[in-house]
């Protein structure tokens, strides 16, 4: 990225201050935009979490820990633990599926690759609302899948396949799968074919070569992909709300209910801050563990 900037800068050493002026001009609008629409809202969210709650969905600015203390009740902790378990399970399943898919796609001919990419991007961009709705249709008694399962004798009677944990899980995997395949795609297309090929000529089966030679080469991207899934699903809201039972409710549902129905904005804000803090903590932990594990440092 810098290879271009260096020769250009070397050429004009004296109008260095002119560069600064141009740069300031270029970046003034984006800076203003991000301060107003990102930093101020973030600050307000944190401030809100320390605010004092008043009746009727109102609150006034303050610096109290009431809301944070409420987070320690077992009910919230249970929901938070469930959210993270759900996110981690989704991560493991979706990465295990996406890894071979991304590898195979990166080895296809150009046309086939583009077809897969267009298909993946189209489903990736599809609203969670529409996907959850589609799953509702697919899993309902009249949705075809149930009829097929009954006809095959796998199910005894016609009844819908949701709400339950499995429906939530499958839909979440569906939602993140295109993201993860596309996330792993660059790393897979950069992989050298010579090493797995060498392993197969030395007698390893293709599946074995894939698992013992290819997988370790992309350990880093696989781990990042898993983290990305956790980040995406830990705050999931609509899928557990529609396809799950109240036992499968997540922090995301608590936060939006708090904000939209019960009108306790300070508590919702505290829950949101806690969720982000837990996520950042998890990221830090993984980074620490991987750094300790790698021989380089």
């Amino acid at each position: 990225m810098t290879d271009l900037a260096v020769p250009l800068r070397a050429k004009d050493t004296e109008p260095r201050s002119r560069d600064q002026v141009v740069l300031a001009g270029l970046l003034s609008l984006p800076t203003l935009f991000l301060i107003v629409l990102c930093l101020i809202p973030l600050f307000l969210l944190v401030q809100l979490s320390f605010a004092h709650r008043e009746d009727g969905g109102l609150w006034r600015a303050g610096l109290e820990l009431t809301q944070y203390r409420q987070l320690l009740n077992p009910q919230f902790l249970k929901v938070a633990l469930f959210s993270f378990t759900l996110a981690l399970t989704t991560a493991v399943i979706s990465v295990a599926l996406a890894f071979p898919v991304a590898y195979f796609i990166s080895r296809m001919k150009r046309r086939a690759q583009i077809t897969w990419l267009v298909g993946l991007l189209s489903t990736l961009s599809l609203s969670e609302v529409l996907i959850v709705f589609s799953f509702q249709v697919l899993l309902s008694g009249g949705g075809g899948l149930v009829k097929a399962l009954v006809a095959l004798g796998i199910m005894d009677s016609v009844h819908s396949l949701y709400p339950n944990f499995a429906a939530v899980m499958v839909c979440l995997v569906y939602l993140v799968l295109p993201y993860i395949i596309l996330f792993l795609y660059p790393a897979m297309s950069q992989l050298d074919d010579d090493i797995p090929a060498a392993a197969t000529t030395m007698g390893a089966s293709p599946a074995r070569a894939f698992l013992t030679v290819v997988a370790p080469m992309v350990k880093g991207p696989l781990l990042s992909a898993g983290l990305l899934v956790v980040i995406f699903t830990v705050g999931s809201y609509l899928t557990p709300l529609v396809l799950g039972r109240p036992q499968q409710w997540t922090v995301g549902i608590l936060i939006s209910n708090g904000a939209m129905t019960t009108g306790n904005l300070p508590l919702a804000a505290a829950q949101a801050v806690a969720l982000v803090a837990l996520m950042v903590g998890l990221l830090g932990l993984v980074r620490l563990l991987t750094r300790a594990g790698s021989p380089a440092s």
Partner: protein
Amino acid sequence: MNEGLVSTILRRGFLALVALFIAAPLVVVIGVSFNEGRRMSFPPSELSLKWYKAFFTDAGWMKSLETSLSISALAAVIAVIVALPIAYAVWRYNSKAAKALAGVGSGLFLLPGVVTALMFSAFWGMAGHVGRIENVILSHSVILLGIPVAMLSVGFQSIEKALIEAAHTMGAGDAEAFRMVVRPAMTPYILCALVYVFVLSLNEYLIAYMVAGFSVQTLPIRVFTSLRSGYEPTMCVGAVIFILLGFAAFSLLAAVGDLPKLMGRHRPLEA
């Protein structure tokens, strides 16, 4: 040799299953949308375009579609206008400030949807500017900013260094080099970034709902609210339109830009 055949069959079978999984809910919704009856049934018992007619003659659905399309178009334009100087400053000046801005943009994209939705609803509430369409447009453009920044950066990096040097040796100034080399090279990337932000904004519902959901009804919000009250066959038509819009947008993207490269492939591909 035989083992090679087995692994080919296994690979094809696996990919076919994944493709089936990805296609299944979409196929079912498309099928149900052509169903004659009011009750949900797949495969459709009798084919009919009745619900399409109902969708396109319903003022409420059409208004939602129009609202969705205008929000996304404006959000895409704003996001790209803000992203361009950031990506350019990172590439041309290797500016630390621009890198920090890019980092803030992509960090925001990684926050859970509920958190950003709550953040923006608090922000617009305190600004005393509630339930307006601009709230959704601006919130979408800032939340999706990381995408155009990343895509435009790929574009800038792909510009041949030699071409700019050639332009300079031929006596072109910075402005001319920009016009002759940078602008034409960047056009497809700008287009791709616009399409991408447009499609993602079109499908976003949680922020839109929490920021202005009661007064600004985008199509996903309408589906979302009827999702909780009960099934309506016109919802399927709305879903089909969005499936087709996304598919059309990304096919266009594949036709205009080098999709494998845009998705991060650096090695050239044989046709």
